């Protein structure tokens, strides 16, 4: 099935970057915004035969201030928590009209984009419904790890220890005191054909994942790391560098889950430390060494768990038993 869907897949390389831009200049994102950079790369790979639907959030605000739009492709915004449902309707509307002959038969890709808040919190139900129903669309979560549009409030995707305006660090607070929700795992649990994480510092990988996501029939979920200089309080020239450090520190691993099979796209053999990753981001500035050690341990464990998923879901890999037999208290 998936092989069939991908038979027209043409790999993008650094030498064959798509020239198409779904987004236009003149958008109002902050200087050095990593989220709009990710969005731009996603739209490049989707191409012109795409309808985009966006949730309320930074990307919606900065691209659509009447009477000017930064969208070169058809685009619809309705509300904050419903982007997956709106995309479901777009898909059904096109499908019915093409089947009934009121629209010419043509491949049109549908993409729904939302922030981490619009995905992991308020939009989770609509997303779950749309994934479960199997609509043919691409869902893109642009994860800048907080509600940036409304002023840097915490979300369930905010990492442990980050200071936000509703999880401020203080005498009695470490900042965010919960662990980041594992959204890709939630998407995988819907048994959809394609789930992947991506990061604009690895733009070729990102765009190829977008291509796969659009070509594969059925729902695809992309979880994209999106740095935010304003909310993370890092220098405005560092969006890509920090994005790269997130992967190199194993904080944000790059992987795909194709029909339930985990593929690690970047095996980080010699990771940089979490401390180094945190350093340029002032949202972590208040953390003490033992806090960071605690987080480092969690990152290590998560990486190990991911390796196990890869091993377990790839029958060809040696000794898949070895990992599951471990019995520890």
């Amino acid at each position, binding site marked *: 099935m998936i092989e069939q869907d991908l038979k027209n897949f043409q790999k993008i390389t*650094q030498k064959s*970057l798509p020239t198409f*831009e779904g*987004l*236009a*200049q*003149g*958008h*109002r*994102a902050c*200087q*050095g*915004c*990593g989220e*709009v*950079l990710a969005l*731009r*790369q996603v739209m490049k790979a989707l191409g012109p035969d795409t309808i985009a639907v966006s949730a309320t959030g930074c990307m919606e605000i900065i*691209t*659509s*201030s*009447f*009477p*000017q*739009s*930064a*969208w*070169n*492709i058809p685009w619809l915004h309705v509300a904050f928590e419903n982007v997956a449902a709106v995309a479901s309707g777009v898909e059904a509307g096109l499908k019915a009209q093409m089947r009934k002959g009121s629209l010419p038969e043509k491949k049109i890709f549908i993409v729904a984009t939302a922030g981490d808040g619009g995905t992991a919190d308020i939009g989770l139900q609509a997303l779950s419904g749309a994934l479960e129903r199997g609509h043919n669309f691409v869902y893109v979560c642009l994860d800048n790890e907080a509600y940036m549009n409304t002023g840097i409030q915490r979300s369930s995707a905010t990492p442990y220890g980050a200071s936000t305006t509703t999880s401020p660090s203080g005498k009695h607070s470490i900042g965010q005191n919960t662990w980041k929700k594992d959204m890709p795992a939630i998407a995988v649990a819907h048994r959809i054909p394609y789930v992947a994480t991506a990061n*604009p510092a690895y*733009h070729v990988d990102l765009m190829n994942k977008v291509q796969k996501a659009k070509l594969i029939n059925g729902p695809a979920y992309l979880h994209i790391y999106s740095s935010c200089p304003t909310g993370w309080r890092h220098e*405005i*020239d*560092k*969006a*890509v*560098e920090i994005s790269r450090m997130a992967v190199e520190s194993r904080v944000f691993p790059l992987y795909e889950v194709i029909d339930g099979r985990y593929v690690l796209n970047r095996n980080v053999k010699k990771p940089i430390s979490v401390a180094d990753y945190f350093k340029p981001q002032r949202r972590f500035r208040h953390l003490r060494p033992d806090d960071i050690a605690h987080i480092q341990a969690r990152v290590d464990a998560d990486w190990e768990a991911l390796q196990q998923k890869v091993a377990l879901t790839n029958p060809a890999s040696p000794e898949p038993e070895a990992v599951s037999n471990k019995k520890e208290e």
Partner: protein
Amino acid sequence: MSTSSAIIGWKNLTLGCAILEPGSSRKLKTGEWRSQHPVLDKEKCIKCAICYIDCPDIAYSQNEEGYFIADMTYCKGCGICANECPKDAITMKMEEE
């Protein structure tokens, strides 16, 4: 049409406030936000397009010679391109008063 063209009587408003002109944000010259700008050293440049693909403001385009040149109409001066250029071919210069 500038941003002030939101001053429209309701009878002339598009149906449902739709924006019919794609990419009309190009009318907003975000280059005005800039306090520094990238300067390219062609000697060092290997035309790899990293600066092009890493610019959040879609400022870069390739000229006939194959160099990537940032459009100062839109460049917000973030410095990502300079930070990412593998050959250090870009330096950020403060805007003159």
